[in-house]
């Protein structure tokens, strides 16, 4: 196992662990206002300091991890659940109208960056974490559809698929039995990368007020709140930012590590 994989897995599990622990324990009540203790820099009582309402930053970061992970994870789930079958179907019916419709649909969705989708949804239904999930999730669909189709297409050319067809197996069965298991590694790696992109997107959306709404803490909104105070309380901006960086870095390293780790075996099989 590579250094990337170990470091990435360690950082990612650290963040996931913080999110899970926050359900049962945080050092302070993340929502409790404590004006006398406001804007404390990091210290022994408050490891990450306090914000302008005297709330404990460490607790907020832990709960914020929950929001980030939940949004990004569900969004990746949406992308995979819809994108992968679409990609498999498009590849199985390469060149047909179905393929054409799916691919054109993909192109169309690619023309709507998740922020634009979020703007549209918010304009119509109002802001909220669900919007962020839908916006990021929709954008993930073509990502997974495309990567699945691309990998599946090259598999369909392979002789073991022809052999399966000669044995009378249909497209759906071949997709499930032969194609999907052979693209699974690729999807796991891409899933990790989309997960990290989802964390970034969620932070951006909450920062401009299109994501999770108060009182749910989220890293993006903590940064938005910190903006006017950055000159005299830089820790307010530094800490949530570092939390995002650590998470995204961890997931990216994990993705790279997984790719290197899973790939040689694919190559052995192919060589």
């Amino acid at each position, binding site marked *: 196992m590579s250094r990337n994989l170990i470091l990435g897995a360690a950082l990612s599990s650290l963040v996931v662990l913080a999110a899970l622990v926050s359900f049962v324990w945080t050092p302070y009540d993340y929502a409790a206002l404590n004006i006398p203790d406001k804007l404390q820099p990091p210290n022994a009582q408050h490891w990450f300091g306090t914000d302008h309402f005297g709330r404990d930053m460490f607790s907020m970061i832990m709960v914020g991890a929950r929001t980030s992970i939940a949004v990004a994870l569900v969004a990746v789930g949406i992308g995979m659940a819809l994108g992968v079958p679409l990609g498999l179907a498009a590849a199985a019916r390469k060149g047909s109208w179905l393929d054409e419709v799916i691919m054109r649909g993909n192109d169309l969705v690619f023309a709507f960056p998740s922020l634009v989708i979020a703007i549209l949804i918010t304009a119509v239904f109002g802001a909220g974490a669900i919007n962020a999930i839908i916006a990021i999730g929709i954008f993930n669909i073509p990502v997974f559809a495309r990567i699945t189709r691309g990998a599946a297409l090259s598999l369909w050319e392979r002789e073991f698929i*022809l*052999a*399966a067809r*000669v*044995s009378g*197996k249909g497209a759906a069965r071949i997709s499930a039995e032969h194609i999907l298991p*052979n693209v699974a590694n690729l999807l796991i790696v891409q899933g990790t990368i989309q997960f990290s992109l989802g964390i970034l997107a969620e932070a951006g959306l909450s920062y401009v007020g299109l994501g999770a709404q108060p009182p749910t803490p989220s890293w993006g909104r903590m940064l938005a709140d910190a903006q006017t105070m950055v000159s005299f309380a830089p820790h307010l901006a530094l800490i949530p930012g570092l939390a995002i960086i650590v998470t995204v870095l961890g997931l990216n390293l994990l993705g790279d590590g997984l790719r290197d780790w899973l790939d040689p075996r*694919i190559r052995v*099989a*192919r060589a």
Partner: protein
Amino acid sequence: MSLLDIENLSLTIHGTPILKQVSLSIAPGEIVAVTGESGSGKSMTALAVMQLLPNGGQATGAIRLEGHDLLTRPEVDMCALRGAAIGMVFQEPMTALNPVKSIGDQVMETILIHKAMPRPQARERAEEVLTRVGLPPDRFPLTRYPHELSGGQRQRVVIAMAIALRPTLLIADEPTTALDVTTQAQILDLLRGLVSEYGMGLLMITHDLAVVADLADKIVVMRHGEVVEEGVTESLLRNMQHPYTRMLFEASGHKVSLPDTISPRPLLEVTQVVRDYRLPRKGLFDTPGHHRAVDQVSFTLKRGERLGLVGESGCGKSTLTRAILGLEEVQAGDIRLEGEPVFAGHKPNPAVRRKMQVVFQDPYGSFNPRHRVERLITEPFHVLENPPMGAERQDLIAEMLSAVGLSPKDADKYIHEFSGGQRQRIAIARALIIQPELILFDEAVSALDVSVRAQILDLLAELCAAYDLTYLFISHDLSVVRTITDRVMVMQAGKIVEQGETEQVFSDPQHPYTRTLIDAAPVLPDIGSQVA
């Protein structure tokens, strides 16, 4: 004095020994062929001369070009030599050229990079060498891009690049392996002509002994990174010393004897089959053109018969194979197995599927890497209405694995645990397991080394006796088809131009194309078999 002298060349790559004490020499105007099976180190020898070894390569010994050792030369000197004093031609013409640069630019680059002459003269020289290799600028302007040329034409461009500066040494690494026989014959002629015209030395790397025997002045046989035998072609062929050399020659011209089992009942009847492909439109409002891949093909395959189908790439034999297998529907005509159509109502007919199986060319791409052998070879059970279960199934798996020369215990292994030849055996087991009436072998031995190929051919002959096989053997390799079939069809441009008893067709071809094919194929001299 010799032009190139390789003396005790040893090579390790990341510590793994690749070459051991290789020595050979080439005189000006001489053609030296280095031959051997995959893993023999023949290509690495060529790359070592060019000093274009993969990362981690460590060479010791000496490679002297006109007396100067190349191994001790700094990289700058080597850059000055490559392309100017040593030219190189590679195996795969489809990928050896930069797709985004015109052929003229690529040929001129050889000249300009060595600052051999100013641009206008370089252009003239490029036109001159392209003409010499058979691509005159009036028909093949310098502005053409590689994708506009065929494989053989691209190989000519690669040769033009290699000889543009009249190098004293030309290295050709399997230059015709990726080409059809007729193209191969032309390229070999071209190389031979260039050698005598320019007085170059040619270091030819090839696995094909027939090519070697035909072309080379001297032969070097390699195995596992070592030279096992070398000598002047004539005398080496007449008097092979090393058992490996003898084995190689025997395997290259390997013959099997098939049992007689033909019955008069027709099994597969193909009548007037046509398969068209749509071509992309030329203009926006043009009607799309058609390419007729298979054109009015008719033939009958009798039960117990072993029928061959030969032809060059693009002749339509793969399309015909796919149509027979029911993978693609044909536009016109009829394909019937025991009277039943392969396609019924635009859907493959399962009744026919049950009676047909296939073995493909690529031993590496033919299996799902995630399944065990047991699951791989039982896949055809899917097409049966009552597939065998339980002990019956296990017995059948064991029987099939034994029949193809593997152990029943191999059923639990994954495919990557097997060599190419073993994989091809597994592919045959998979085809046999439902006892099909007809098996299609689609270039089934083309990707194998000669010794392995000989073993698989032996296996086929054995299976013919044990299971009364009927098969259609599709191949571009005439010598293989000659020994493994009773009857043969020759296909050209979508049509079957000749068919008949295999020996009859080969000894007395009627159609001019058949004659061209047979003449173009290099033939092993008979000397080897006399010794063995």
